[in-house]
């Protein structure tokens, strides 16, 4: 029997900024589901944003799925494969999945397969409640992600 792939689901965003919390809330739901299903090879983490030490966390994984809220022109959610990038920002407040992947490759010589799950959001004020449309998108993304993990 093939060994189960090591998967990390990592959501990021701010649960105090309405739909920006999509990554966090979806990760929490997936975490509950994983515990219920006893999927021991899947780990879930979340944070306000990505940081350089996360390169260390993804280095020993086979598959990494980052989740973030999106303002892009998508219907509800979209999964894209992440390519490495070395783009430098001018403040420490931005680290992208592609930057982390590149850092992981260069420092640890590891190349996990990294995806980014974009979930469409609409409003971003200092409020804790997500919009109904964002919640609907999260529900769809949740069903998709469960299938994706089971089939990975």
């Amino acid at each position, binding site marked *: 029997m093939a060994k189960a792939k090591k998967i990390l689901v990592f959501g990021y965003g701010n649960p105090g900024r309405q739909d920006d919390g999509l990554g966090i809330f979806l990760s929490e739901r997936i975490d509950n589901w994983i515990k219920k299903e006893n999927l021991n090879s899947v780990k879930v983490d979340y944070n306000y944003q990505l940081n350089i030490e996360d390169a260390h966390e993804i280095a020993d994984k086979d598959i990494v799925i980052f989740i973030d809220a*999106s303002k892009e022109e998508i219907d509800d959610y979209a999964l894209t494969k992440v390519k490495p990038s070395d783009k430098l920002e001018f403040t420490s407040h931005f680290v992208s999945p592609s930057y982390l992947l590149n850092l992981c490759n260069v420092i640890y010589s590891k190349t996990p397969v990294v995806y980014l799950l974009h979930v469409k959001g609409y409003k971003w004020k200092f409020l804790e409640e997500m919009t109904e449309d964002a919640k609907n998108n999260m529900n769809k993304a949740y069903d998709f992600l469960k299938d994706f993990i089971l089939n990975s």
Partner: protein
Amino acid sequence: MGQKLTIDPVTRVEGHGKVTIHLDNDGNIEQTRLHIVEFRGFERFIQGRPYWEAPVLVQRLCGICPVSHHLAAAKALDVIVGAGTGEGLTPTGEKMRRLMHYGQIFQSHTFHFFHLASPDLLFGADGDPLKRNIIGVTLENKELAVQGVLMRKYGQEVIKATAGKKIHGTGAIPGGINKHLTSEDKEYLLNGLEPMNINKMIDWTQAALEFFHDYHSQNKELIDNFSVFPSSSLSLVRKDGALDLYHGVLRAVDADGKIILHDIDYQEYHKYIDEEVRTWSYMKFPYLKELGKKTGWYTVGPLARMNTAEFIDTPIAQKEFERFKAYTKGKPNNMSMHMHWARLIEILHSAEMIKQLLNDPDILEGELVIKGQKLLEGVGLIEAPRGTLFHHYKINENDQIAMTNLIVSTTNNNQPMNEAVNFVANKVMKGKLKITEGMLNAVEVAIRAYDPCLSCATHALGQMPLEISLYDVNNKLIDLKRSR
């Protein structure tokens, strides 16, 4: 009518800023402005909430330094619950909070130095943009890059052990702290397997300082002259004048080192500090009332703290502090690139403090919380990684928050960042009508030294990159450049 250059990182919901540079007809710099969009709506978000929720809620303000907001809010609420102004907590309460705070300073400064500053140092402001990033650092000096990542991780472990969850950390509560450090966490952080232990962190910080000194000796022009302008400095200091990142009295010195704010109790900060609104900026400009709007502005952050403090109360950092002070013959240091040096000294001090606190029995046992006569108003200040952070709350008889006023470090540094951009623009853009990668980099390096917090913690995808626009005398766009 002159020409206008715009460096425009117009991204995200809010946050980020843009730089506009106005040229006259002869191509000389007429005026520079750094526009930063300050966060809005937080006061309304928190108004009406029970005051004890504030230390958790304010973490939503910043994804990079939630701990600083967490602790500043807790300090303000200490006053409200009658636990004093930073000195009235139980030994366990204060030491656990300090441990959390030094972990935060350690990880945040590490991120800045290794992730943002070292590429500038290794490759210079005019270096190849394809190399000027941490990847370039890694290829050039892999050991340095790996150490940066693991030092960040260590700092995060300290925070995790003291504050709990990354998103909903609850360590500090009004009047104290909600738990002791476990003996397992103490052992892990103090004597963990190589390299994850405090002695290795101190060694690596010293190695980073040596890296900086080597670089400095070979690149004096960049480090000493890249961006230099006279500025006053403001920070908390301990009552005896020592550097204290967690608590103290508020002191400011002018560019000559003369004390211009005399160790005041920060509960009365509003008597001494005011904020100016300027029509062209969303972010306010704080200033010392006594000196007025024009000359009362000041710098906060690592460099300012080196200028206000008289000594550092940990031996290795003190030795480096003496070297730092000797470089300017004891006078305030206003060389912006020396911010990186100051930051490294603070990383070292934080690591020494973490070691000291981990060896203190009070973190494992003792009373966690103290309370006294309740008040309806409290102010909490802390030296966050980027500088002095002010939290001010008033509550009503129903224990609900009725008023909030925050002055974040980046707001305090609003004028200095404008000065830095102006200095650099005059140096590299004078007489130029086309924006080069080097110009963009130079302005970014100047801003990056302050590592501004750009109304963070929203990170939705689908944003625009940094952009520079160049306008001619008729305000017509003649050049546009975006960062990669």
